[in-house]
């Protein structure tokens, strides 16, 4: 690589340029980008990191089903399960002399099942019974009576005495007590749901937070990218033409754009969403409108300043047509800022979209969406911090990645005018 540097010094004399260097110039953009590392010092890793991150996020967004362990809309676990915790398992204790006994066998109206006061076993039992009822044939109904006991010993004594048909407790509660009761057996099959584990826990409905986040990526990306693309496609040409042509057309357009720009973003989006109604298309439009003025202003400003540059005048002196001046001289010098705005725009649009759904606009309520999750999780901040933490983290991460990409792109796309 040193020769590349050395080459720059000696080019004015008639020195040999190695053939590979000449070929390299023909090879093209990607290779040149790779060698751009030479000029941009240590910042290459910045692009790499944000690029990889974004690539990952995009893949997750396109194929959420590969990554999500569960269906995001279905209740798959206990509600409000902390992250990483195994769903509590419970053992059904029965007298061994009856042979293998399942919950099903002792769950109708005449049966009694006991548990310790305050234990989650009651919830577990209720849920297990509900599940039985869901899968039960017509007419059969399971509804065992519940018996509460102060301590484990009391309950176990009652079980041996035959007062209750079964006792449900968690393995922690049971401990090693079973050693003292050889006549009791434990059915550990209760609570088998959630073999894959709940890495991020579950929400109040019992949906897996991780799966919801993963599926939420898709919505976020769709809305974020689409609205950014729409804004760009509308804002950039308007800015170019307005800056180039000037005059009353420019003044009117600027006035219009400035009025839109001066609205606080979220409020404007809400108003538009309220008018247009629900639906993902309308959300995209509402957010897109928000960002058009940003593209417009920046592109117009850049066009105005580039117009005055000496190389534009040089182009004029060559006899270049106006159309070519716009496309070959002004546009390429304006695009870098557009790319940067775009990257930041996408991140911001995702935020706005989360805000809109947070407030209840647009998306149907059972959509796995970060904003909706954030809204629902508000009430549980103390009890179940993971409900808002993870969606919040995702929003932050994605926005950050886009911003990082934007910044690193700006480094690469701006020719180093001061470097020599």
């Amino acid at each position: 690589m040193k020769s590349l540097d050395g080459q720059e010094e000696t080019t004015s004399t008639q020195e040999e340029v190695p053939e590979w260097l000449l070929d390299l110039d023909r090879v093209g953009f990607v290779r040149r980008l790779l060698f751009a590392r030479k000029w941009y010092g240590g910042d290459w890793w910045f692009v790499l990191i944000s690029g990889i991150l974004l690539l990952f996020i995009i893949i997750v967004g396109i194929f959420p089903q590969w990554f999500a362990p569960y269906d995001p809309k279905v209740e798959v676990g206990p509600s409000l399960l902390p992250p990483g915790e195994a769903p509590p398992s419970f053992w059904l204790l029965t007298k061994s002399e009856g042979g293998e006994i399942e919950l099903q066998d002792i769950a109708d109206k005449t049966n009694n099942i006991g548990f310790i006061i305050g234990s989650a076993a009651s919830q577990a039992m209720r849920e297990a019974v509900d599940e039985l009822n869901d899968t039960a044939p017509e007419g059969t109904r399971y509804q065992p009576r519940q018996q509460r006991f102060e301590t484990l010993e009391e309950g176990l004594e009652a079980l041996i005495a035959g007062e209750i048909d079964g006792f449900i407790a968690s393995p922690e509660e049971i401990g090693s007590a079973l050693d003292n009761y050889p006549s009791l057996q434990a059915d550990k099959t209760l609570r088998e749901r959630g073999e894959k584990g709940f890495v991020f826990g579950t929400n109040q409905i019992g949906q897996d937070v991780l799966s919801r986040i993963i599926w939420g990526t898709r919505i976020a990306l769709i809305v974020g990218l689409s609205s950014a693309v729409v804004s760009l496609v509308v804002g950039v040409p308007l800015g170019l033409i307005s800056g180039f042509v000037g005059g009353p057309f420019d003044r009117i357009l600027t006035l219009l754009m400035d009025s839109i720009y001066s609205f606080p973003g979220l409020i404007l989006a809400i108003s538009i969403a309220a008018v247009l109604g629900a639906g993902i298309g309308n959300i995209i439009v509402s957010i897109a409108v928000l960002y058009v003025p940003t593209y417009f202003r920046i592109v117009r400003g850049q066009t105005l300043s580039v117009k005055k540059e000496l190389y534009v005048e040089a182009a004029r002196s060559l006899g270049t047509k106006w159309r070519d001046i716009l496309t070959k001289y002004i546009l390429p010098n304006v695009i870098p800022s557009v790319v940067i705005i775009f990257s930041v725009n996408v991140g911001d649009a995702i935020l706005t979209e989360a805000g809109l759904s947070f407030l209840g606009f647009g998306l149907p309520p059972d959509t796995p969406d970060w904003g909706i999750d954030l809204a629902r999780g508000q009430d549980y901040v103390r009890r179940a911090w993971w409900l808002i933490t993870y969606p919040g983290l995702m929003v932050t991460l994605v926005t950050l990645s886009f911003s990082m990409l934007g910044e690193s792109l700006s480094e690469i796309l701006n020719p180093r005018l001061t470097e020599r």
Partner: protein
Amino acid sequence: MTEKEILMQVRNLSVMYKTRLGEVSAVDNVSFDIHKGEILGLVGESGCGKSTMGKALMRMIQPPGKITSGQIIVDGEDIMTYDQKQMRDFRGRKVSMIFQDPMTSLNPVQRVDEHIVEAIQVHESKTKTEEALSRAEGLIQRLGIRKNRMKSYPHQLSGGMRQRVMVGLGLVLNANLIIADEATTSLDVIVEAQLADELRDIRETFGVSLLVITHNIALVAELSDRLAVMYAGHIVEMGDVETVFDTPLHPYTKGLLKSIPNIKLDDTEKLYKMPGEPPNLTHPPTGCRFHPRCPYAMPICSKYEPYFKEVLPGRAVKCWLYIDHPEKESETIEVTA
């Protein structure tokens, strides 16, 4: 000039800049003297380090640049050891500077008289405003600015006048040395000549030393007593201006002098085209920094860096042609007066 009292001694001065591409050694181990009452010209192309040198002499190098070594001795004291307060006193009172762009070096919201009064009061805080004003008036008129322009703002003055105000700011405190960093580069030819006359006059009247930093070698020929030629962070040749012009020693100086356009019709020489370009100072050439472009280069030149040798009293050159070395194959050239 029989007596050459020394005003400033620069010893082993080095200035380094940190850039994205590496460290640039802008001034590398340079030593020279400035005499009292002399006009010393410091010439070189862009990037040779002359502006950096000027700023370094007033310790005005800002990060990412830094003076990495050296001493600057004035009146027996090394200003590199001065603290902030002493430096503030030094700047303006002992040494002052005129910059290239007169528009941006004056405060646009201060009138001319305010500028000068401020300069006086900053350094001599007990001076009353009326007294400061009368000193200012006298000086301004001496510089050729009419009294009625004292109340003008910088934007109301022309480039030449603004430069004179800058000169005035230097003189009003009886500075011993004025550093003019490309002070005439942005001025029209006639105004430049007027300013040059002015500077010569000032030297005669006040005994002020002038360090004229410029890439305009013809200007230096018109104006200065002695001449120092800089290349790639080194002073490569120094001496009386006539001697250097008549018998340049260093190959760079020779090439440079031959490449300057001369308006005189009787000079019919074709302009000499120096091959190559100034080096990249993040990776300067090994040994002598000029050797890749030097028509007289010897094998030793790429291996070792020559030192700045005083070949005659008042005449110094940094080139192996004039210095002995065990590995040298060719003869060392003797310099005769």
